[in-house]
């Protein structure tokens, strides 16, 4: 679905069904240097099970126009603008990594627009090492290699994503390579520059699910649990043998956890 947000085109995958704003809405927010397709299984399932799914491409990513947003706060504002453009009053937000910070920020400031928030691969602080941050700016290819190696817990995935026969690690690398030059650095700088995670977490009024990978080397589960403790109504689910790419490595477990959380 194409929307018009802040003067630019904004793309959202609707799970293979026409978007119906009358249904309970879920907005899926991808992580740095990625796009909507990381959510294809979860958003497609929920779209066929009574929800209105919007798996967005953030500005400058995938099919959305405009430049990548410089900070997490701007991403949160953009999500609200997407809800307005799609004529959605209240939505559940599901964010991964950078997208989880955007979802957290959005939930903190817009309690009447956000009914629930699921944060995957979330952590605070989400600082990026100076070497990696430099690499995202000057050596994208090297940075892709590092991020991809750190994002996976193993070399075999069942049932793989989006299905058997797909090499999750190769798919994640190609997806990063598909993003425009400069997006990677903007995203990682935004994560690195976010300073108010604990304050925003304390402001969140809605139920929050923290879905963490026990073997996440990008955003360690320990830092996710620290953030979860700051949210008044939070639940933590830790997936064994999962790294940072939770949706790629554990698509079924992620979906099952989301379904349970959304139905609670």
């Amino acid at each position, binding site marked *: 679905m194409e929307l018009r947000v802040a003067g630019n085109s904004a793309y959202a*995958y609707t799970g*293979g069904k026409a978007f119906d704003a009358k249904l309970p809405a879920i907005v899926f927010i991808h992580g740095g240097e990625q*796009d909507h*397709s990381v959510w*294809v*299984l979860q958003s*497609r*399932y929920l779209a*066929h099970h009574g929800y209105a799914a919007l798996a967005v491409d953030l500005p400058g990513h*995938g099919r959305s126009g405009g430049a990548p947003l410089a900070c997490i706060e701007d991403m949160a504002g953009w999500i609200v603008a997407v809800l307005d453009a799609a004529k959605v009053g209240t939505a559940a937000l599901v964010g991964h990594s950078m997208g989880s910070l955007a979802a957290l920020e959005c939930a903190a400031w817009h309690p009447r627009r956000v009914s629930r928030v699921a944060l995957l691969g979330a952590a605070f602080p989400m600082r990026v*090492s*100076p*070497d*990696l941050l430099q690499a995202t700016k000057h050596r994208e290819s*090297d940075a892709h*290699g*590092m991020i*991809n*190696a*750190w994002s996976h817990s*193993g*070399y*075999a*995935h*069942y*049932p*793989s*994503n*989006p*299905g*058997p*026969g*797909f*090499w999750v*690690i*190769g*798919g994640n690398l*190609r*997806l990063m*390579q*598909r993003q425009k030059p400069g997006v990677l650095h903007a995203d990682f700088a935004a994560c690195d520059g976010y300073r108010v995670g604990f304050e925003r977490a304390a402001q969140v009024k809605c139920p929050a699910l923290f879905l963490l990978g026990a073997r996440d*080397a990008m955003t360690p589960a320990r830092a996710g649990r620290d953030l979860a403790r700051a949210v008044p109504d939070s639940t933590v689910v830790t997936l064994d043998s999962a790294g940072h790419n939770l949706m790629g490595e554990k*698509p*079924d477990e992620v*979906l099952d956890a989301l379904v349970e959380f959304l139905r609670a």
Partner: protein
Amino acid sequence: MAAPRSLQFDTLSLHAGQRPDPVTGARAVPIYFTTSFVFRDADHAAALFNMERGGHVYSRISNPTNAVLEERVAALEGGVGAIATASGQAALHLAVATIAGAGSHIVASRALYGGSHNLLSYTLPRFGIQTTFVAPRDLAAWKKAIRPETRLLFGETLGNPGLDVLDIPSVAAIAHEARLPLLVDATFTTPYLLKPFDHGADLVYHSATKFLGGHGVAIGGVLVDGGTFDWEASGKFPELSEPYAGFHGMDFQEESTVAAFLLRARREGLRDFGACMSPASAFQILQGIETLPLRMERHVENTRKVIAFLGGQVAVESIAYPELPAHPDHVLARRLLPRGCGAVFSFELRGGRDAGRRFIEALKVFSHLANVGDAKSLVIHPASTTHFRMSDAALAEAGIGPGTIRLSIGLEDPEDLIEDLARGLRAAKD
């Protein structure tokens, strides 16, 4: 900050796509001899059919043993995924059928395996798909042959029979300028010697029957998607970038930014044409892949020794192997194939058809048969076997001389191979 280390080729050959079985602890890849898979409940079934969950439904579409093979080959090639097929020819057909149809056109290298040439020359035209063949070294010809209805450029990493080295970077650039993908048959090189995706190819397939398996016991193919080609931006592939009525109105490019081709190939081509691989074959080919790096190194080492021997023989008129300075693609081969140019090559024996026949029949170690890429050394003399009805003139048009001998060098002691060839050469002179 220490950069993380990704698994290297040798390790991926053993581990990619598989972990010890979580239920039984089996370390080796189990053979899942089952046609179908039980659903957890009705919702799970519906979700699998509607691609809301990944998983196995029916072994024509996917199977856990095959999935290990697919993911392993994809990892070795540097792709996003793969599909195991009944044979290499089935992989080629699946690639073509996924993005071409009646009215489509292909530009292909003239230096192709005979079966592929037949498919493109005679069979696909019956279904409305035409092919223009070009000399693989003639880059201008590749460009000139592209038409508005062209959907694919296609060649082999090492062409048949003269081992023409496909200039993948240049042909890929021509393809991409025309918003078309390049498909490469990498059977002769395997990812150990050459990774076509690193040089610009978009799709790769193998006859896994050959070096990937290496043992000559299983027929199979693997089609790999590099995940680099933007089908939607091309504007020429509505099969991948517009809703498909045959699968719930799915727009494959929307579903997967990087794997639209493979999604459609599996959901349509494998489902409808049904040329799937048996899980037994997948297991056997996986056993071969575990030792692929070791075998390819030895194949190339033995080949170099055999070529050094043949090069000094008066009875040998010429040898077509790109590592030799006289080969027209020698410079290109040094750039694209630094680890070696494979283990299949042809040489021209003086004395014509009769000499060729005597040579073949005197060999004791080499097996006289129509295959390549076995652990055992193989030989064939086209003029007295596969092409025996053709005149010398017709043979020449196909790039084959009356004394052309094709060898596939195996893993035996190289001195035994050389002694066997010396025996053959002596017989050829009689």
